[in-house]
């Protein structure tokens, strides 16, 4: 595979911020600490990590908004440090907050950004019309953005980052703060963009989101890429499917674990609070049937029984040894 198959490449990116509180004291916060990334052209790549992991810093560095202190980055075939202006012609960026003008209408926003992309008045108008249609904003086109819902604002923001059909689109937590419906709307928009050939680098704290949208995921923690794999590959690292049993009485938990142990390939884990026992199995259906039958034979009252695919939450815990903080709080 040649280097041009990649739309984004970063090698050993380093970025340190001067700590505000100790300004002058020479204290630094290392936000990127040798960060590596390779995004194949035409794909959605997820950058997954908890709050403070360095996702925004990475995206801002790649999108030319932030000078980095070390390492190399190439976006759409252009060296970011050497020719940031050329990079800006080839990328779109939707930051963590929808960066649209709230006083103006959706149409006025897109026309303004179009003119600032040097489309000229007539082409900027035409392009605004197309994008409003594409992002399903025609009905609200002439209303103030201040009156838009979170999902609509995000879609307008996406539209604004798409004016020149960028080769690479950076989306920094595009669904944070949206309700499920708004989230679905943004997901649909992203899928449509990729179908159109754009490469998308998307950061998220939502494990589910990376799983749904991305064909490859880089897990970032404390400024470093700690894993880079397909969603399934990541899940395989924590093992295959698991059989999970929730018992009705605490006294039965150990017995249930023993039943699972007969068919499982790993030592069962138990959760005394949730009264849950689970372990990884090879032959999913046979194992589930066997466990269900044995539990019934032994007269153990079961609240719930089922197969569970490992979530990316499990992956994160396995890779970093700590939980994704925001997920735990949510």
């Amino acid at each position, binding site marked *: 595979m040649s280097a041009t198959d990649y739309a984004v490449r970063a090698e050993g990116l380093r970025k340190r911020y*001067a700590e505000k509180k100790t300004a002058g004291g020479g204290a630094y916060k290392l936000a990127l600490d040798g960060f590596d990334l390779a995004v194949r052209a035409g794909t959605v790549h997820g950058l997954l990590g908890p709050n403070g992991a360095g996702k925004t810093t990475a995206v*801002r560095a790649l*999108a*030319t*908004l*932030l*000078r980095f202190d070390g390492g190399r980055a190439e976006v759409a075939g252009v060296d970011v440090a050497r020719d940031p*202006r050329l990079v*800006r*012609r*080839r*990328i*779109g*960026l939707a*930051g*963590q*907050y*929808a*960066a*649209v*003008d*709230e*006083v*103006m*209408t959706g149409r*006025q926003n897109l026309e*303004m*950004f179009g*003119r*600032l*992309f*040097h*489309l000229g008045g007539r*082409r900027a108008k035409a*392009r605004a019309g*197309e994008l409003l249609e594409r992002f399903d904003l025609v009905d609200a086109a002439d209303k*103030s953005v201040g009156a838009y819902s979170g999902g609509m604002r995000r879609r307008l923001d996406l539209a*604004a*980052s*798409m*004016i*020149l*059909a960028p*080769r690479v689109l950076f989306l920094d937590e595009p669904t944070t703060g949206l309700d499920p419906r708004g989230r679905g709307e943004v997901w649909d928009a992203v899928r449509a963009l990729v*179908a*159109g*050939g*754009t490469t998308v680098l998307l950061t998220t704290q939502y494990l589910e989101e990376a799983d749904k949208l991305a064909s490859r995921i880089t897990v970032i923690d404390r400024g470093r890429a700690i894993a880079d794999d397909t969603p399934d590959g990541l899940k395989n690292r924590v093992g295959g499917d698991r059989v999970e049993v929730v018992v009705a009485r605490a006294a039965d938990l150990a017995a249930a674990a023993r039943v699972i142990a007969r068919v499982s390939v790993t030592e069962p884990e138990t959760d005394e609070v949730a009264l849950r026992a689970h372990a990884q199995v090879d032959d999913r259906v046979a194992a589930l049937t066997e466990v269900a039958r044995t539990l019934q034979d032994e007269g153990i009252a079961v609240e719930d029984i089922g197969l569970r695919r490992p979530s990316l939450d499990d992956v994160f815990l396995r890779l970093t040894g700590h939980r994704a903080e925001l997920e735990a709080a949510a």
Partner: protein
Amino acid sequence: MSTVKTEETEKRETDPNPAAPHPGDLYPAGPERRLYWALADCWNVTRRTLTHYQRQPVTIVWQLGFPIVSVLLYGFVFGEAMAVPGDGDYREFLMPGMFASTMAFGFMGTTMAVVTDSTKGVIDRFRSMPMAPSAVAAGRGVSDLLVACAELTILGVTALLIGWEAEGGAPAAAGAFGLLLLLRFSLIWVGVWLGLLVPNAEAAGGLYAVAFPLTMISSIFVAPSLMPSWLGPVAAWNPVSSTVTATRELFGQPVSGGTWIEENAVLMAVVWPLVITAVFLPLAVRRFQALSR
């Protein structure tokens, strides 16, 4: 037309989103083209602010509410009670002060607009686009000056309605308005710098607490010669005072305490804004560049 495939033409053939314009067409090289686009970018940023006023004309009413209400309050409520050196008319004394204080407080508008754009990510979006970086602040400046012209016009009409007139002749009056706009121009850079410095709009609002005494300790409402002896010189050397004193002179209603700073008000009304610009323009540029640090 050559048949060699350039990067852009190749992209066009394979682009699944053919309706989208292509950057290759839009950024012809060359210094004069670059200047043209820098000016075009600046105008487009200016248009944005003008669109704001067009969509929310009431904001300009609010902005003007303070000086107009002040003219009426100070002019009529305090008018008879306020002393003016040399037995002058207070309303006549007050008008140049109101013009100048409107210009001086204008920096708050710049600060608010810049801090809103920077916290809402609009400045980052501009920076991620291939537009001229200077246009972000320049466009702001042009629109602020246009708004300042509108403010001076409306204030001037109010003044004429309550019986004020420029007695120094039309050229001198034009010069006075020029000095007022020069003051406003220099304060644009203070506003941009502060807007990029303060963390959010609430903090920027707190600047009123600083700006209000700064404009009160000046010759806007009261002549420095009538202030306590320790305060008078401070007020006289306030840059806003030079503009006020100079415009009083140019409007044909001179009031001077006889000090050097007051005798050379017209000169200083040019010098002060140049000094302010020389200090704060580079600071604002540095602050803007620091966004990528």
